[in-house]
């Protein structure tokens, strides 16, 4: 492709060339490095959000406790929820989708590498922006769904930070969604037809479509909130005709697809891990894929189940009860097909497998309590109690986080070339499994005993004391298990076993390349001939249908040398980083209502974007 040679001196920034060293992380456009960045950043946020949770649990360990003031508590539970959802589960999903998306479909990179870097930087800066509120007058304290009109009447800048911080994070998600959708539709290796794609890729695709259409809705709600708070508009101001229910509708129109955004990648991960360790193909591939799509579709028609008690009236409540209940059907399909995948297998209980199984066992509980919420008259009792808190931690932690930890163990050797220790891994799993159930199972009971959520203190004599104490013990057990994981990671850097390219004898393309993969992913773009392509290159079937390894050397016969001369990889660029820097600046400008600062931020964005537009994506070195 023809690239016009551009005079370097005319550039504001000389084109970065280094692909190693600390500075290179700011200019990288390599989807693998960006994946690692996502993963590390999200993990740090997990520790922060977890530390907030531990503070919450400490405060609630005993009745009438005074470790946290009401004010601090409210900021902590809000920031805990926001952090875990927007800064942990979503970006951890993005980490794996970024790293493994292109590898699993046999691509060299994502469709828009610089846009990818932009997404990441916007995400980090959005996170930093929201957290800066702690030092600038108080963090958001209106709950993660920030109901109107409390979100407007709360004093302090917290909820303004909320409206702008989530807005910034939304931009990151939207850019990422466009990027991954196009990558999956358009960047597949030859032969990688849609119905040959790994389930994880399918679930990524569905997730990104949900993001594509859900993010703009919350963006609008957040803009309206911003105008209300900063410029006295009336969108949610009941004293002047605004309707608080509009916020609820807009929020949950986004919010429910959002929860599937958080679970579908996890389901994809589990659908990769199970076949690998059961040593057989996924049961009912088509059903697993289509049920994922069905969940994505149905997820648009159930939002009002978060508003059953808001007074929608019996007709609307019945309709949404029905739509909600029936989401259990496609979800059940997934559960049954996973069990079908295990059935008849030869199950190896390695750490990733344990986490995947933990996911299934716990997600069933969370799913069933979800169905119990959908029984509207019961939900009148359950809503806003700890029964709900139990439900969503079972799906989010017991589900998403368990699967994501499974993914860490599963893909670690691919990313870093070393296996995480099995012994520590199993310890991690069992501690987390026990701690998790200790922390969250009693919440069902406490909820049924009438403990509302979001209360910073409670009197004794309600029958809640003992169970709350147990929950706190459970929470600290989880924290210990996370520490075990950290130890495992540190230990592995030096002492981890180097297991080669395909330690699990796995099935999908990412295992066909070296560990860690070279910058260009594959020396030769693979030609895909079947689903689980790698497996079929490694094994042929004997007459009984049992796999027989291909004669040694067969799989290695793929070309080793750099056959086709130069591979064009996108060149690093600082501009995505520069462009993203403008966003939090605008945010701070709005919080303090300083037009000058907003304009400054706008100029930074323009500079970044112009630089970006004017530089070619690939530059001859």
């Amino acid at each position, binding site marked *: 492709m023809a690239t016009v040679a551009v005079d370097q001196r005319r550039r504001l920034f000389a084109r970065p060339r280094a692909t190693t060293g600390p500075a290179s992380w700011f200019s990288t456009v390599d989807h693998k490095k960006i994946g690692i960045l996502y993963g590390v950043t999200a993990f740090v946020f997990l520790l922060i959000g977890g530390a907030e949770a531990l503070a919450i649990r400490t405060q609630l360990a005993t009745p009438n406790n005074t470790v946290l003031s009401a004010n601090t508590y409210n900021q902590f539970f809000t920031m805990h929820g926001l952090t875990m959802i927007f800064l942990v589960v979503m970006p951890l999903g993005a980490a794996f989708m970024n790293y493994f998306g292109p590898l699993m479909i046999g691509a060299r990179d994502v469709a828009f590498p610089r846009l990818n870097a932009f997404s990441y930087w916007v995400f980090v800066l959005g996170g930093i922006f929201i957290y800066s509120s702690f030092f600038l007058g108080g963090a958001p304290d209106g709950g993660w769904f920030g109901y109107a009109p409390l979100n407007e009447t709360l004093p302090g800048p917290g909820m303004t930070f909320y409206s702008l911080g989530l807005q910034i994070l939304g931009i990151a998600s939207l850019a990422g969604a466009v990027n991954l959708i196009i990558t999956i539709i358009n960047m597949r290796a030859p032969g990688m037809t849609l119905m040959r794609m790994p389930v994880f890729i399918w679930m990524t695709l569905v997730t990104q479509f949900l993001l*594509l259409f859900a993010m703009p809705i919350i963006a609008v709600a957040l803009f309206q909130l911003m105008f209300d708070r900063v410029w006295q508009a009336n969108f949610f101001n009941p*004293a*002047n*005709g605004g*309707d608080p229910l509009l916020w609820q509708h807009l929020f949950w129109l986004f919010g429910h697809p959002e929860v599937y955004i958080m679970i579908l990648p996890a389901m994809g991960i589990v659908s990769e891990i199970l076949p690998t360790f059961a040593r057989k193909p996924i049961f009912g591939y088509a059903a697993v894929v289509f049920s994922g799509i069905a969940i994505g579709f149905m997820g*648009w028609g159930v*939002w009002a189940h978060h508003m059953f008690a808001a007074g*929608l*009236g019996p007709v609307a409540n019945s309709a949404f009860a029905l739509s909600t209940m029936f989401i259990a059907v496609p979800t059940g399909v997934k559960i049954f097909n996973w069990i079908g995948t295990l059935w008849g297998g030869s199950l190896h209980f390695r750490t990733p497998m344990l986490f995947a199984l933990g996911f299934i066992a716990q997600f069933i509980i969370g799913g069933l309590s979800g169905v119990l919420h959908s029984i509207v008259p019961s939900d009148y009792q359950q809503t806003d109690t700890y029964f709900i808190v139990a439900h969503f931690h079972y799906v989010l932690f017991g589900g998403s986080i368990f699967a994501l930890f499974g993914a860490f163990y599963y893909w670690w050797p691919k990313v870093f070339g070393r296996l995480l220790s099995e012994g520590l891994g199993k310890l991690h799993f069992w501690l987390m499994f026990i701690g998790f159930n200790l922390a969250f199972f009693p919440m069902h009971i406490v909820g049924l005993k009438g403990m509302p959520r979001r209360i910073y203190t409670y009197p004794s004599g309600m029958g809640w004391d003992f169970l709350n104490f147990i929950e706190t013990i459970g929470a600290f057990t989880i924290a210990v298990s996370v520490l075990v994981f950290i130890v495992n990671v540190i230990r592995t850097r030096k002492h981890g076993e180097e297991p080669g390219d395909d330690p699990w004898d796995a099935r999908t393309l990412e295992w066909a390349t070296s560990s860690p993969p070279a910058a260009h992913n594959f020396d030769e773009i693979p030609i895909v001939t079947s689903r689980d392509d790698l497996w079929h290159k490694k094994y042929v079937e004997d007459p009984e249908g049992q796999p027989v390894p291909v004669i040694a050397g067969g799989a290695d016969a793929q070309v080793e040398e750099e056959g086709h001369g130069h591979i064009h990889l996108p060149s690093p660029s600082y501009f995505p980083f520069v462009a993203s820097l403008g966003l939090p600046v605008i945010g701070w400008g709005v919080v303090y209502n300083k037009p000058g600062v907003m304009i400054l931020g706008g100029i930074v964005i323009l500079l970044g974007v112009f630089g970006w537009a004017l530089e070619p994506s690939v530059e001859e070195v």
Partner: protein
Amino acid sequence: MSQAEHLQEHGHPTPRKYVGVAIVLAILTAIEVTISYIDSLRSILVYVLLVLALVKFELVAAWFMHLRFDNAIFKRLFVTGIVTALLVFGVVLTYFFSHGGPAPSLGG
């Protein structure tokens, strides 16, 4: 590029065609504005206006944005967005209007 080839296959719309479409758009706009002043049409006005807007929408999308000539994937991406929006906001607005619109202000 595949792009250009594609257009050529289906015959490049000529500038003349584009102008033709624009004239139709202009006429439709004129009609819209005019009928919005005719009181006797008030009862069906909303529907007529919506249909006219839809036609204009469709003309721009089909001709100026080339959806008529391009691969169906593009159309599907766009239409999915439109349909999702229509469905969910249809439900939201139906709900609000069947419940007497936005909150009647009960006073401070």
